[in-house]
């Protein structure tokens, strides 16, 4: 029973991390109608920027304080992601307004390739370290109730808390600020928003920047856990079932979907996996999402798809 709880916690925490990445997808889809396949590459690019600036900034400015280095590196990475968002809006989105979904999807795939190549050119292909002071060793809790206690990974716990805080901040941003309202207006109906004077181009830059910062936070957390390397962008593939399960247009959907997929994945791998020789978690997540979709084709919290004939 103790181990079951461990698996459950592990799944929930990993689910939170998936939600972080899924959040980026949802934000961009809501506001610009683009399914941003490049989210994974953005996570990677942001993480690489952070990791490398953390190394380089102390060298350039000649100081040794780790916390200052981290803060400056984070700030630099945020600037980098805003620049990326600006460039994407200028060079790609602006020219592809009103194209079909699949064209936009392919464009983001092109952006993925570009970011991956560019990131490795700028920052290198080795494994880089992100050290934000996260504790690495696990902690045992509930030793009284279960023999041996339940192992909780402190880093995952901190990450889940950070993710929750970020989601809360984003919710506040969307509900309480004028820009947030404008973003919701654009998500609702592009043309109506334009007709009341909301500048679409600028809104898109803001959305992609926010998604970039979300990608940065996700990249820092994942990078701190796994090290920053090219293959980090593959983690985004694991967030796709979260997005379709929760619904492409729903932020709470991304969270709940993430938790469901995280728990489902881990439980399936531990308890069903050995029957099949293991390694089933990646397709299990997708099949789980698929099953949900058959019941609700627009995802758990997504907008109902209305086809006009």
């Amino acid at each position, binding site marked *: 029973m103790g181990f079951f709880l461990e698996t459950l916690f592990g799944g929930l925490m990993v689910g939170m991390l998936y939600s972080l990445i899924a959040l980026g997808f949802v934000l961009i889809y809501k506001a610009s109608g683009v399914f941003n396949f490049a989210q994974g590459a953005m996570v990677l690019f942001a993480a690489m920027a952070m990791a490398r600036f953390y190394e380089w900034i102390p060298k350039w400015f000649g100081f040794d304080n780790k916390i200052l280095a981290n803060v400056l590196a984070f700030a630099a990475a945020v600037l980098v992601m805003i620049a990326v968002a600006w460039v994407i809006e200028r060079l790609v989105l602006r020219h*592809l307004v009103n194209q079909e979904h*699949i064209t936009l999807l392919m*464009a983001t795939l092109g952006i993925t*390739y570009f*970011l991956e190549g560019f990131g*490795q*050119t700028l920052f290198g292909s080795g494994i880089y370290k992100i050290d934000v002071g996260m504790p690495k060793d696990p902690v045992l809790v509930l030793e009284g109730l279960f023999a041996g206690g339940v192992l909780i990974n402190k880093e995952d716990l901190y990450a889940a808390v950070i993710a929750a805080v970020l989601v809360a901040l984003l919710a506040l941003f969307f509900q309480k600020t004028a820009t947030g309202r404008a973003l919701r207006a654009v998500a609702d109906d592009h043309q109506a928003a334009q007709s009341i004077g909301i500048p679409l181009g600028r809104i898109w830059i803001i959305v992609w920047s926010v998604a970039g910062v979300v990608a940065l936070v996700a990249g820092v957390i994942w990078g701190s856990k796994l090290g920053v390397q090219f293959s980090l962008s593959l983690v985004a593939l694991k967030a796709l079932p979260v997005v379709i399960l929760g619904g492409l247009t729903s932020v709470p959907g991304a969270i709940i979907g993430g938790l469901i997929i995280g728990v489902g994945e881990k439980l399936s791998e531990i308890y069903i996996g050995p029957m099949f020789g293991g390694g089933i978690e990646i397709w299990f997540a*997708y099949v789980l999402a698929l099953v949900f*979709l058959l019941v609700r084709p627009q995802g758990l919290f997504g907008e109902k798809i209305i*086809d006009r004939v």
Partner: protein
Amino acid sequence: MLYRENGQFKSSYRSDQQIFPILQDRIAMVALLVLAVVIVPLIASPYLLTAIFIPFLILALAALGLNILVGYCGQISLGTGAFMAVGAYAAYNVQTRIDGMPLIASLLFGGLASTVLGVLFGVPSLRIKGLYLAVATLAAQFFVDWACLRLGWVTNGSSSGSVSVAGLNVLGLPIESPVQKYLFALVFLAVFALLAKNLVRGAIGREWMAIRDMDVAAAVIGIRPVYAKLTAFAVSSFIVGVAGGLWGFIHLGSWEPAAFNIDRSFQLLFMVIIGGLGSIMGSFFGAAFIVVLPIILDGLPYWFGIPIDTATASHLTFMIFGALIVFFLIVEPHGIARLWSTAKEKLRLWPFPH
């Protein structure tokens, strides 16, 4: 001036409805076939054949299959690699376990196995649409990736998960040298291209296109969505499965499941989109573009004599590849096929301005 149809009168429905109604087109087609069948094997080096032409032919076949599903029927599929894998492994199993099985029969069996899987994973398309379906097809991709590694009978008990074929022959004629492999793949491509072209020109093709454009309206006028969507999946998977078998047997010779992973699926989708959705010609253009481009990009720095290390060259290839895809989508979202047909339209008027 050269491309006019003046004087070409049709006196029967049959001749009016043929694939190439214009005489110049027919001549061009014959010339192309002569070039492909006779000239290329004579003058192309073995490297060109094995590294460019054979992958081009096989991937064009796979892109053809995918185009039927995505371009003609509008069902986005990101699991094409999985169908290729199923085709390859099924063909391998039949070829190795049954002694004396003809090669063509094995490949076609591979296609059939892929059809079964295709229809199975096509069932969700009856409920799910658009981007959701795209991600759902990834379930097929990852499932097949896993199954090929884990289920021993798929690889005929190979401890490493890697399989290989040898001694390919058709009715005693060996398929060993690059030229033989090239001609073998070319025959498959030509036959299936003709098949596909006639399918999309027929009633079933029109049903697919109706579903693609407005599936609710299509259902209203009596087209059964179940039938249309599932046949699209079936035909598409069959062609992709045969292409997968060819890829494993003819091009790689020895392969592991990673040869058909998600990168392959994306590559095929790129081919179809850049080549042109809903166009048989487009599959060829897209395949040529995607096969040749990385090789040219890899070699480009060396032609200009710029000494850069392979890592940077590889990164540059990625960057230029991505940028070109975006560029293409901006400039001509309907793909190279649209550029081609626009060019032909202009050619019909040339040298007159209008």
